[in-house]
């Protein structure tokens, strides 16, 4: 179990307006911080960067319907064996267990779904993710263990498609 307190001294916080133009800054900060951690391989840094970007995008979109003057908080912290990034918004919240599933990628119907890839991507890219309700809003906690990736990428070709991406389940 990861047991990193929020108030750990090495924490870094970035607070941005809930607007699309600031997601790039969140990525820049995360990849800069991750790069200074020598034990994290480059492709794992890219994974973390994409996952955090997806979480920030969702946080920003959650505010789009509510109040675009709201703010999104990114909190970075480190421990011996892992990195943790929390993304917090004050949006309406959601239930991550009741998200729609896509049709299989081989089904022509699949093309009707332009959205819904963010959370499955986060789940595939990082070692651990939690979507916790906040009061109000959502707090997404992403954890990346340091050292080599434990998740293998499904290679191109006729390999299996990972769950959440249109498998019939």
């Amino acid at each position, binding site marked *: 179990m990861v047991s990193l307190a929020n108030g750990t001294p090495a924490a870094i916080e970035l607070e941005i307006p809930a607007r*699309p*133009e600031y*997601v*790039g800054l969140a*990525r820049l900060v995360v990849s800069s911080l991750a790069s200074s951690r020598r034990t994290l391989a480059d*492709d794992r840094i*890219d994974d973390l*960067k*994409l996952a955090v*970007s*997806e979480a920030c*995008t969702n946080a*920003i*979109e959650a505010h789009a319907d509510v109040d675009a003057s709201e703010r999104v908080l990114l909190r970075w912290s480190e421990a011996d064996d892992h990195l943790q990034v929390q993304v917090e918004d004050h949006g309406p919240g959601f239930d991550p267990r009741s998200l729609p599933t896509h049709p299989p*990628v*081989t089904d022509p119907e*699949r*093309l*009707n*779904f*332009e*959205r819904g*890839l*963010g959370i*499955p*991507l986060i789940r*595939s*890219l990082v070692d651990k993710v939690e979507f916790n309700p906040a009061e109000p809003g959502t707090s997404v906690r992403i954890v990346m263990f340091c050292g080599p990736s434990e998740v293998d*990428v*499904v*290679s*191109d070709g006729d390999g299996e*498609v*990972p769950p959440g*991406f*249109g498998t019939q389940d």
Partner: protein
Amino acid sequence: MDLGLDVTDHGDTTVLAVRGEVDVYTAPRLREKLVELVSQGKHNITVDLEAVDFLDSTGLGVLVGGLKRLRSHDGDLSLVCTQHRILKVFEITGLTKVFAIHASVDDAVGA
């Protein structure tokens, strides 16, 4: 953060070369450009992703939407991509089964 969008015609195929980061901020411009090309009657489009530094789920969604639009005109949308970190996003979402992905523009327009 700029998104570069360069259009060149290669016979029947229109190549849209994208440069920069495709995310929630820039993806709308990619979507508009694809819609514009389709409305100009360009129904075979190759999106060249070789100069893309970052592509997120919003970008994937725009490409899926573009493919759907082109298919409805009996056209196609293919991709050029050899960068590992960009390919990976298509691989883990299974979208390598949806898009024809080429190793070069020559491959794509000759195909």
